[in-house]
C-alpha cells in the first residue's frame, strides 16, 4: 500500500542536513511554516534556499541558517537580518527576475536544460549569459534549478500525495513540487484516497514523496 503520510516532523525532514539545497514555496499565503519551524528546531544550517523573497524565510535568516539564497526580491519588512548578513558577506545572493526564477524551477522539474527569455535582455541580468536573436528580438539563456528537497504547503492531500491548494496559496508550490528530489508537502488536512476528485487534483501524486498534516496555516514573520 502506498502511504506517503509521515508520522511526525522528524520523518518529514529525514535526510535534510547541513548544506542541503531546499526549494521553499509560498508568497504571502502558501508558506510551509511548520516545515520551516521543523528545520529551525532541528538545527539544520548552511542551506542553499530557493524562494521568492526573504519574508517567508525570515526565521531561517534570523537564525543564520542560510548560506546561499537564490531569489527574486530579497526585501521585506523582516529583511534586516538578511541585509546585514549580505553586507557582511555571510550570504551569497543570486537574483533572478521573478518570472525567470519561476520558469527555471519549472524547467528543473520538467527536465528542460534551460530556456531563452526576452526578460532581462538589454539589462545587467544578461551580463555573462548567452543571448540569441529569435524573430528579430534578443533572448537570454537561463538555466534550470533543482534542489535536494522541496518544502511546500497545500490544502488537502491523500495518502498517495495528490494535492489541492486554496485560493492564492497555490503560487510557487506546484512548480517547486516538481523540482525537488524529495518533495515534502505540509497540508491542512489529509483526506481518504478517493475524496479528492481527479479533476480537482492540481499536483499529481508522483511529484510528492512525503505528506504531513499540520492543520491551518500558522505562519508568522517571527
Amino acid at each position, binding site marked *: 500500500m502506498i502511504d506517503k503520510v509521515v508520522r511526525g516532523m522528524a520523518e518529514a525532514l529525514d535526510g535534510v542536513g547541513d548544506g542541503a539545497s531546499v526549494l521553499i514555496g509560498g*508568497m504571502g499565503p502558501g508558506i510551509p511554516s511548520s516545515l520551516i519551524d521543523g528545520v529551525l528546531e532541528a538545527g539544520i544550517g548552511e542551506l542553499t534556499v530557493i524562494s521568492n523573497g526573504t519574508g517567508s524565510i525570515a526565521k531561517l535568516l534570523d537564525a543564520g541558517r542560510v548560506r546561499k539564497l537564490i531569489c527574486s526580491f530579497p526585501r521585506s519588512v523582516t529583511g534586516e537580518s*538578511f541585509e546585514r548578513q549580505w553586507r557582511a558577506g555571510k550570504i551569497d545572493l543570486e537574483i533572478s527576475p*521573478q518570472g525567470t526564477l519561476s*520558469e527555471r524551477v519549472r524547467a528543473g522539474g520538467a527536465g528542460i536544460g534551460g530556456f531563452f527569455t526576452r526578460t*532581462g535582455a538589454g539589462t545587467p541580468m544578461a551580463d555573462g549569459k548567452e543571448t540569441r536573436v529569435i524573430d528579430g528580438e534578443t533572448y537570454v539563456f537561463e538555466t534550470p534549478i533543482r534542489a535536494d528537497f522541496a518544502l511546500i504547503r497545500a490544502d488537502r492531500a491523500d495518502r498517495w500525495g495528490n494535492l489541492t491548494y486554496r485560493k492564492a496559496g497555490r503560487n510557487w508550490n506546484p512548480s517547486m513540487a516538481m523540482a525537488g528530489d524529495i518533495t515534502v508537502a505540509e497540508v491542512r488536512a489529509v483526506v481518504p484516497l478517493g475524496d479528492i476528485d481527479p479533476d480537482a487534483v492540481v499536483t499529481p501524486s508522483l511529484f510528492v514523496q512525503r505528506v504531513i498534516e499540520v492543520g491551518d*496555516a500558522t505562519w508568522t514573520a517571527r
Partner: protein
Amino acid sequence: MDRPLTREEIAWRAGQDIPEGAVVNLGFGVPLLIAERLPEGREILLHSENGLLGMGPAPKPGAEDPDIMNAGAEMCTVVTGASFFAHVDSFAMIRGGHIDISMLGAYEVAENGDLANWSTGLDDTERAPAIGGAMDLARGAKRVHVLAMHNAKDGSPRIVQSCQYPLTAPACVNRVYTDIAVVDIAPEGAVLRELLDGMSFDDVQARTGAILTLAPDCAPLRRPD
C-alpha cells in the same frame, strides 16, 4: 496655476485610460492606488503576479481571508469571475503578451522608452539588489504605463534623454503619467499630451530631461472632480 496632482490623483488619471475588458497589472506604490479608483461602468480585470486574475479591493474589517493576498502580500478580495493559478502560469501570462497594460513606477524613463525602476546602482553595498516581477512585466506586457512624480525629491527629471540607472527593460514604455503632465513615448520621442492648467510648455520642458514635442491636441491635465 493649478495644484499638481497627488499620488492618488495620478492613479485616478491613469485609470481613466483603461479600456473596457482590459487585463491590467498594477505595480507597487502609486500604480496599486488605481485599484480603489477604477472608472465606473467598465469591466476591468486586475492581474496579480502571485497567481490571481480578478483582484478586488481591500477586504472589509472582519472579512479578511489569509489565503487571498496580492503580490505585495497585502490582503485583498476577488471579484466574481476571478481565477487562481500557479505563479509559473502567472508569468506565462506576463511574458506571453497576455497582459494588456502593466502599470509601473520608475526612477527614470528615457525618450526612447527605456525604463529604469529596480536599482539605483549595482555598486550599492548597502542594499541588496531586488528585481521582483518588474523586468518580466516591462518586457512582456502589451503596453507599459509609468506613474511617477515628474521630478525626484532632489528635483532631477525622471523623463530623460538616456537612463543613468541600470535598465529594467529597453524601449518598453508607452506612456508616462506624472503630477503635472501626460507624456507619450512615441517613435518620434517624448510627446506632451496633457499639461497642468496654467503651466506653459517651457515650464514643463525646464523640468524634463528629454526634448519634448507638443502634441497638436495637447489638452489640460484631467483630474478628478
